[in-house]
């Protein structure tokens, strides 16, 4: 049988960075082929090569037996290759229908009827559908993700590349997506799935290639690997070295722990926070929450139930319609971001590209931007002190980069996230940490590091609020978990309770509301 895609000895560098070197890979038609690897291993680069987004430096590619060398995405599409990007590719100012119409190529008269037929077919085969008349920039990420996949499927591709498609989805959406992947493969096409989540790999994948530092660390049918083997190939150390709570997240079975006893007075107090959306509906509908020093509280829930809005209000990006937010003595309801930082509130934002960092600036600058005045000597900035401090953080947090002056944009997604986490944890004093999707897009080794740091921050006395779509992670990390449902917080559920998972599941669909 002719393989769908074959890469032989390919290489690609960006300036001094060797993103891929000597990578070979074979994907068969009718299978879901998983590409795994730690952050910066070169997974996105690999996908972009196949999709024509970056140009090949060395090596050969064949597609269904024929030599293949796309120089732009259009070539790839013409050859029957479609890709869902790690960062989206819908035009935000056009409606979803218009975006989908464009995917069929620019014609004078858009073929609306064909589009509707195509959508009906896709809904029938894969059970996917999206609202057509909303602006792409205005719908929740989950919907956008579906629109992306539909956009690809409309082209009826022979090979579908999915770069971390599950990173931004809630558990239900993840299930749907993995099911879709299987169906696409069963329809005889080839699927390349990039993911960090081993649970997904075992559920949806047929075979896998594991990358490490731009080279292939292992490859073959998944049946031949155990979870331990995969983790070891990815991060280069045995799974037993990792935090047990991570192992929990890999196995998706909660380990029961002692219920921690927190007795201190709460420092974090949110009372009756409300926020309305542009269309008048309530994104936050009276949020009440108290967190004591040393306590870790998790917010679970299906995407779009007010979690993102809660973070924007807490971070000061948007003032609440009513209610108050206090941190110890400080009323931060309407404080500026700077005021919040001064009061000891650290925030790890959900969208690290737009909010969390300045991609065009160096790691050192990104790490210390809010505290530059500490490096001022007689009015001037002491750059060597800045770089020394940054080098220490890079070392300490295991950030993979060429040095403190490396531009943030040249880091892989996971390493960017590590920089953000490092900066927020470095607040002194850290009274409270709000972490939104802190492990999104991180490899398992990095997740281990980040969760460990959040826990030690709590042990050092910070009140921690974690918003995450990874229920297993929350169960393993938090003392109690609340569930966001239509702008309110339901619960709490003690994480250590034996039926916590079921209880949370019920709350997520509003059962106890």
């Amino acid at each position: 049988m002719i393989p769908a895609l074959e890469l032989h000895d390919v290489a690609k560098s960006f300036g001094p960075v060797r993103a891929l070197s000597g990578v070979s890979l074979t994907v068969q038609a009718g299978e879901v082929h998983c590409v795994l690897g730690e952050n910066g291993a070169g997974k996105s680069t690999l996908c972009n090569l196949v999709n024509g987004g970056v140009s090949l430096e060395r090596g050969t590619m064949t597609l269904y037996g024929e030599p293949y060398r796309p120089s732009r995405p259009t070539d790839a599409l013409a050859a029957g290759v479609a890709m869902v990007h790690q960062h989206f590719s819908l035009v935000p100012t056009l409606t979803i229908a218009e975006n989908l119409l464009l995917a069929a190529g620019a014609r004078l008269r858009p073929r609306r009827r064909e589009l509707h037929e195509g959508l009906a077919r896709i809904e029938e085969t894969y059970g996917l559908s999206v609202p057509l008349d909303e602006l792409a920039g205005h719908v929740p990420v989950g919907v956008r993700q579906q629109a992306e996949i539909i956009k690809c499927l409309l082209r009826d591709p022979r090979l579908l590349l999915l770069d971390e498609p599950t990173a931004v989805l809630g558990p239900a959406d993840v299930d749907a997506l993995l099911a879709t992947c299987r169906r696409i493969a069963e329809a005889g096409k080839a699927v390349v799935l990039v993911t960090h989540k081993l649970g997904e790999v075992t559920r949806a994948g047929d075979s896998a290639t594991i990358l490490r530092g731009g080279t292939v660390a292992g490859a073959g049918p998944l049946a031949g690997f155990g979870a331990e083997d995969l983790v070891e190939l990815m991060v280069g150390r045995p799974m037993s070295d990792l935090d047990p709570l991570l192992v929990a997240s890999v196995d998706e079975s909660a380990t029961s722990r002692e219920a921690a006893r927190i007795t201190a007075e709460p420092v974090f107090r949110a009372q009756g926070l409300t926020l309305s959306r542009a269309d008048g509906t309530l994104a936050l509908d009276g949020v009440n929450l108290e967190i004591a020093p040393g306590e870790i509280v998790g917010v679970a829930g299906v995407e779009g139930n007010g979690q993102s809005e809660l973070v924007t209000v807490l971070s000061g990006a948007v003032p609440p319609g009513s209610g108050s937010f206090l941190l110890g003595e400080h009323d931060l309801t309407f404080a500026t971001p700077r005021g919040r930082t001064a009061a000891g509130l650290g925030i790890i934002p959900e969208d690290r590209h737009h909010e969390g960092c300045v991609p065009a600036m160096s790691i050192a600058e990104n790490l210390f931007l809010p505290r530059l005045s500490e490096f001022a000597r007689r009015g001037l900035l002491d750059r060597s002190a800045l770089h020394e401090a940054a080098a220490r953080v890079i070392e300490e947090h295991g950030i993979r980069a060429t040095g403190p002056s490396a531009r943030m944009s040249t880091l892989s997604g996971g390493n960017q996230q590590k920089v953000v986490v490092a900066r927020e944890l470095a607040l002194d004093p850290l009274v409270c940490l709000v972490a939104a999707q802190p492990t999104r897009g991180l490899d398992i080794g990095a997740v281990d590091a980040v969760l460990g740091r959040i826990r030690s921050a709590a042990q050092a006395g910070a009140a921690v609020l974690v918003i995450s779509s990874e229920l297993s992670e929350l169960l393993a990390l938090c003392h109690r978990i609340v569930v966001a449902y239509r702008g309110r917080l339901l619960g709490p559920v003690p994480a250590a309770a034996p039926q916590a998972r079921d209880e949370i599941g019920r709350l997520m669909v509003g059962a106890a509301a």
Partner: protein
Amino acid sequence: MRTNAFVVYGGAALAALLAGALLALGGGASPLQAGAALWEGMFGSAYAIGSSLNTAAALGLIATGFTVAHRAGLVNVGGEGQLCAGGIAAAFAGVSLPDATPTLVALPLVLLVAFAAGGAWAAIAAWLKVSRGTSEVITTLLLNFVGLAMVLLVVHEEGLLRQPVTSSQTLPQSEPLIEGARLPLLGLEGSPATIAFLIAAVAAVAVAVLLRRTATGTRLTAVGHSVTAAARLGLPVRRLQFWSLTSAGGLAGMAGGALVATTPFVLAESFSSGYGFAGLVVGLLARGSLAAVAGVALLFGLLASGGMNLQLAAGVPASSVQIVQSLLTIFIAGAVILRRTS
């Protein structure tokens, strides 16, 4: 990187010179003669160099301001309008001060007023940017034309700045500035260079230090690259944007003040001479480097002197000089990609 820049700009200049030689040939002058005339015009006399310095000072001030705003991600296309505002304000101050006001008082006052007026003119765009999100490229572009028309208005209306109309022959221009408000010469033998050059140099160095060596500079850079991230990280984004664009306007306004405080010391209709647009081009070509601002401003100043001598000594028409200058700009702008890719 630096040698690379040198090669790129040198290549662009060479290409422009080649085009110039062809034009000179077409106009009947020998390229060699034209070259000699250009060289002589640029470096041939203390006078020419002094004039170039004056031009470079005005362009440099505008481009320095441009660079400050650009660092915060704002493109100040409004140099011409801000220059006009500064010139108008300087003229108002310079003609209404008592005649005996000493230079030490009058000159700083006039320049400050010009700075404030240029800043205020830019602040309109800055305010619209921070409060309503209106693109400053557009508002500052529009304000140019309004500023130019304002000059027309004040020099034509007697109630405003027009000199007292004693006969039907009175020219539509302001009265001359008082002695004390005029820019002193640098005092170089046979050179018309004023201290405007020193002012521009100080401004460029101060801004270079501000942008490269201070926390504020780094904050401006952060705002320039990502407004959302900078806001999230607690930087006073709106304040930084507002003041960076406003100071860009201030520096352009000061250039306007300097133009009015140089011979013939009056405000007249077309006093701005397109310097606002030229300064913008200098700023854009310099791409954020203050050293490049100084270099390109000097180059433009020298080219103006050289172009004049090309007409005088080689009989090359003004339009050919204009063609060569615009080609040079286009080549430099187009060659930037060579620096980017390498």
